[in-house]
């Protein structure tokens, strides 16, 4: 599902056509450019407002944006939020429940529906996005055609934004460098290996089991091999059942952590000078996943929500994902257009030979299996 360079070229070509078309559309649209004339809540692209400046004016008039469950140390979200605040000083951003889960974002939207504290936008794992499409307003950003088809819902209900590979981060001063998954079963890793969350709850941990499955002769169709691996890890006394955070890494409690490569890279940046932190994506089959953006259909600030989307898919924000070690959705198109930060792009961990991403059906089957088997496997 990750695009190849050739595919990227095609996409870039389509992008140019699409952008030109958008340009025409905005030229002919009956846009007065004032905030009051457009119903922002039903706008499905920037052309409904006229142009970006009109959208900015509408968003400024609202003056607020509610985001939820965006940890500042997750994929460089801190810098993304700060740049938005700097660019649009008239819009006050309210960040709630930074450590919440995707499911909690939807719950918050339903509980707060109709109030001006409800979240305007969501950042969701694929399973939650697929299950809650009736909570989203469709919107296609100006750079829509740069985004690979596999990453987006066709009407723009949800769109993949940034992603990466499931990787293992480790402290080279505490453990030897693992080169394969089975290395982690060795005595050098006793009481040292942690997973970011419980796989029956958190997307990243779920992906850790998926990665272990495909690396342990299993497949995305059957996570049992992954569960078996963590069962063995637990039996060897190597699995430590605390939630890893930058603090537990800094203190040395979790010297080995299964997490998305961009998060692991982020830990390293954050702890620079305090602790060495290396990241490895095991060769062979890699397991990738993307997080998705969506707009709350009941967004209290519909124009600001749409401006936030435009901002997230702009070159600036996409390069910020890259700075956080994540792979931005528009990476290939930006590489062709020469707008990507090539130094950062080339510095990403090497991509494995083959890459898998589970489909919705495979995810569901794996979730059911985890619900039945996980607790027993790690007890």
């Amino acid at each position, binding site marked *: 599902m990750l695009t190849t360079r050739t595919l990227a070229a095609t996409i870039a070509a389509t992008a140019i056509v699409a952008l030109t078309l958008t340009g025409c559309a905005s030229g002919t649209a009956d846009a007065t450019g004032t905030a009051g004339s457009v119903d922002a809540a039903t706008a499905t692209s920037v052309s409904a407002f006229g142009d970006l400046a009109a959208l900015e004016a509408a968003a400024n008039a609202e003056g607020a944006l509610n985001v939820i469950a965006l940890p500042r140390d997750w994929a460089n979200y801190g810098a993304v939020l700060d740049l938005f605040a700097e660019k649009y000083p008239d819009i006050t951003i309210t960040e709630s429940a930074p450590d919440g889960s995707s*499911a909690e974002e939807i719950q918050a939207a339903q509980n707060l529906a109709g109030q001006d504290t409800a979240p305007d936008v969501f950042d969701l794992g694929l399973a939650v996005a697929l299950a809650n499409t009736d909570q989203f307003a469709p919107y296609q950003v100006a750079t829509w055609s740069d985004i690979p088809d596999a990453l987006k819902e066709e009407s723009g209900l949800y769109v993949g934004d940034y992603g990466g590979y499931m990787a293992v981060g480790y402290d080279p001063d505490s453990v030897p460098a693992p080169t394969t998954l089975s290395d982690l079963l060795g005595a050098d890793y006793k009481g040292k290996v942690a997973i970011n969350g419980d796989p029956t709850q958190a997307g990243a941990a779920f992906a850790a089991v998926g990665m272990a499955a495909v690396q342990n002769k299993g497949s995305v169709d059957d996570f049992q091999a992954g569960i078996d691996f963590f069962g063995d890890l637990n039996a060897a006394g190597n699995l430590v*059942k605390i939630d890893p955070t930058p603090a537990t890494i800094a203190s040395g409690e979790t010297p080995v952590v299964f997490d998305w490569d961009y998060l692991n890279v982020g830990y390293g940046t954050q702890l620079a000078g305090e602790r060495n932190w290396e990241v490895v994506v095991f060769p062979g089959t890699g397991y990738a996943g993307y997080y998705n953006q969506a707009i709350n259909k009941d967004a209290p600030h519909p124009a600001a929500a749409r401006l936030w989307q435009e901002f997230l898919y702009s070159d600036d924000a996409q390069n910020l994902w890259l700075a956080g070690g994540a792979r931005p959705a528009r990476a290939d198109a930006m590489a062709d257009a020469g707008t990507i930060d090539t130094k950062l792009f080339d510095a990403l961990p090497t991509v494995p030979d083959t890459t898998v991403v589970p489909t919705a059906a495979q995810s569901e089957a794996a979730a059911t299996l985890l619900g039945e088997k996980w607790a027993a496997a790690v007890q």
Partner: protein
Amino acid sequence: MSSRFRAPAAALGLLPFAVYVLLFLALPTLIAVGTGFIGADGGFTLETLAALGNPVVLNAFGSSVWLSALTAVIGAVLGALVCYALLGARPDGALRSTVDSLSSVIAQFGGAMLAFAFTATIGIQGMVTVLLRDTVGVDIFADGVWLYELPGLVLPYIYFQVPLMVITFMPALASLKVTWAEANATLGGTARSYWLRIALPVLAPSFLGSLLLLFANAFSSYATAATLISQGAQIVPLQIRSALTSETMLGRENLAGALALGMIIVMSVVMTGYARLASRAARWQR
């Protein structure tokens, strides 16, 4: 109670509290339990309730009961011993009041703070752990890191169980009247007969009542476990969290209601027992 309700002014005074309890205790409980009987389609179903028979869920209930019972017994015994030792101290003395106030504080020192305190002390890189490893060469985690598993909850739970026992049991011990001991002595009794025939029978309901309270306290504890354990949801409160917040297994919110119903049943049995024992114990404290 009923005689008090005859005074309308007193009843009126209770009104704010009654409304509060109704809004923030009774109503949420009803809603939580109600969701256990609602299916994905919004209709009535017993299917979610059937999920309570799932081995994973049964296991969690087993672990919860086991953990609560163990820490309640240890806490009750240790707490009772502390109370007994304190009997020797003057009731208005510095020692008694220090232990009393310390117990009140520590009994409330739970949740994430307590978990962090334990991580900092006996975590993998905790002060005591490192000290033991570097000076005496003892690795308390040689057989695996048990602190972040079910057995790891025993120590933190005992930490707040013992002071709670001191708070609830001390009044009972203090109400043992000196005159009873004197009567026993006058009638030719020994210290043994005093404890066996008088003190222990009088104290038994209070002790068992406090034991049940401790059990309920541990059974409903959530934050400490949630902070320490991130894998497997071994106890019921963690199962409820998992059913409510999971982003990988969706549509299980109603299971949380069914789990809550299970917890409420256990808690009702325990608290009914506590109320009965407490009223028996009260006879001797007048």
